């Protein structure tokens, strides 16, 4: 009998998975449905460059349905809820989609309204985020007319998509103000809820060093609870205040709202509890998840979504054939970190191994790990092409496999937490 595969979310993970499954299954073996609320696929890593005029929003957005192979049914609608007991999805437009297998790929949702005052007066005037196309655009205009003062770059709390992006923003802002020859009139502050520049010790030390080098003040364990967007004040729950002329924040993230509306599917923040090596959800055996929507203890990043995709597709095939699941996903993540002045750093890690110095993908490189280089910056820029032409269509990317390569990493410590 023909299998019904329903994929919620037509972003990075959903599109890639749909294309891979469509190639694997003949039309008479499976119907594949993809649901997304709109038809605008944003290349999200590009948002980092928009505020500095290094990219335009229309250059990083393409029609969603065009990224899907023929033979995939695209439904443009909000997901209303999932009935995991009945194997059905209800869409806002009233459509009911029954499924044999469901993939949750609805990513993470920004929740600026969860922070007191953030979306009140001053929002998008003095307090901004570059995590949405509109926000990035408005911030670009504000930066253009900014000619000095205190800029606070802030990460309210984890988890967020691409945890290095706020740091990259701070580095690029430093370079941007230098280029405009007003760096000496700008005070740059990086305020984070973490206890260091990043989550993992070796990389955190490296990145803190870079902040110092660039004269960016690091404020740690700053759990922002309130924003005064008119007076220009960011306050933490433990009673500290940071004054700003311009705030660039990354709002709190949660899972998609329908996850919270669907009994038994998500956790308190709307993320979907998922087996960390098979990507099967804990909700039901025929429900799988990937990307930012899961609760897995690894970064919410496109690279993670991509590596998960390999194991996920394999497991969907095995599940539908009644075979045992592959449990080889190791938490592999790989992130370029833009550091300004045409340079970038690269980090590569998984559940067990923290980001270490060395070379990627092997001992002879070519890319240096945890060290600034022009080649890494070119790698980051190249990635947009790779994203549209290889990652989304679900083609193999030469030299980059799902499992984290050990060769090339310099282990400095014996601990891995």
């Amino acid at each position, binding site marked *: 009998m023909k299998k019904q595969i329903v994929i919620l979310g037509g972003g990075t993970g959903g599109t890639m998975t749909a294309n891979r499954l469509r190639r694997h299954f003949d039309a008479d073996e499976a119907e594949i449905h993809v649901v997304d609320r709109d038809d605008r696929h944003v290349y999200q890593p590009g948002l980092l460059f928009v505020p500095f005029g290094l990219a335009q929003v229309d250059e990083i957005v393409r029609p969603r349905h065009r990224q899907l192979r023929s033979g995939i049914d695209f439904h443009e609608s909000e997901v209303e809820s999932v009935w995991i007991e009945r194997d059905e999805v209800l869409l806002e437009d009233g459509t009911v989609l029954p499924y044999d297998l469901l993939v949750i790929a609805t990513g993470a949702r920004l929740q600026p309204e969860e922070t007191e005052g953030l979306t009140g007066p001053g929002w998008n005037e003095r307090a901004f985020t570059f995590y949405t196309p509109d926000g990035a655009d408005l911030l670009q205009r504000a930066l253009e007319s900014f000619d000095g003062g205190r800029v606070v770059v802030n990460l309210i709390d984890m988890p967020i998509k691409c945890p290095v992006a706020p740091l990259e923003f701070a580095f690029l802002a430093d370079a941007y103000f230098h280029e405009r020859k007003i760096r000496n009139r700008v005070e740059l502050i990086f305020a984070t809820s973490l206890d260091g520049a990043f*989550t993992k010790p070796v990389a955190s030390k490296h990145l803190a060093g870079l902040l110092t080098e660039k004269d960016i003040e690091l404020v740690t364990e700053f759990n922002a609870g309130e924003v005064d967007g008119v007076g220009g004040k960011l306050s933490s729950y433990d009673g500290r205040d940071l004054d700003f002329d311009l705030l660039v924040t990354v709002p709190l993230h949660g899972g998609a709202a329908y996850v919270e509306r669907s009994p038994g599917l998500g*956790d*308190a923040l709307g993320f979907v509890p998922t087996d960390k090596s098979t990507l099967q959800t804990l909700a039901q055996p025929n429900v799988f998840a990937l990307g930012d929507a899961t609760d897995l203890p690894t*970064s919410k990043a496109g690279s993670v979504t991509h590596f998960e995709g390999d194991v996920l597709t394999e497991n969907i095939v095995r599940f539908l054939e009644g075979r045992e699941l592959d449990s080889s996903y190791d938490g592999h993540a790989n992130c370029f970190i833009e550091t300004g002045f045409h340079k970038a750093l690269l980090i590569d890690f998984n559940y067990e191994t923290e980001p270490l110095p060395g070379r990627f993908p092997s001992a002879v490189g070519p890319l240096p790990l945890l060290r600034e280089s022009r080649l890494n910056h070119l790698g980051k820029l190249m990635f947009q092409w790779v994203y549209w032409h290889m990652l989304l269509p679900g083609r193999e990317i030469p030299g980059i496999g799902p499992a984290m390569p050990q060769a090339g990493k310099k282990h400095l410590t014996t601990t891995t*937490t």
Partner: protein
Amino acid sequence: MTALLIAETSVDVDAEGFLTNPDQWNEQIAEEIARESGVPALTDRHWLVIRYMRDRYLATGTAPSIRSLGKESGVPIKELYALFPKGPAKLAAKIGGIPKPRGCI
């Protein structure tokens, strides 16, 4: 990891003083760690949070973050900071005798 005597009981702790074996914990230990960490007396509200953290850790192997703690325990984040100054999730974990929350990546 080192062994430490707290409330006349020998417990294993990490470099920052978090118990590494939750089974070695008891309420006297909690009260002593609390005092040393600047929480002179544990009220019912403190205990509610401490027990919630412990139960979650023992059931799932990870302690909740401050945000899920705020949503799930019914104690708002502002109050959590009043009860456990500085870092509520960390401090409640320490007092509750469970390993330091790993945070997100």
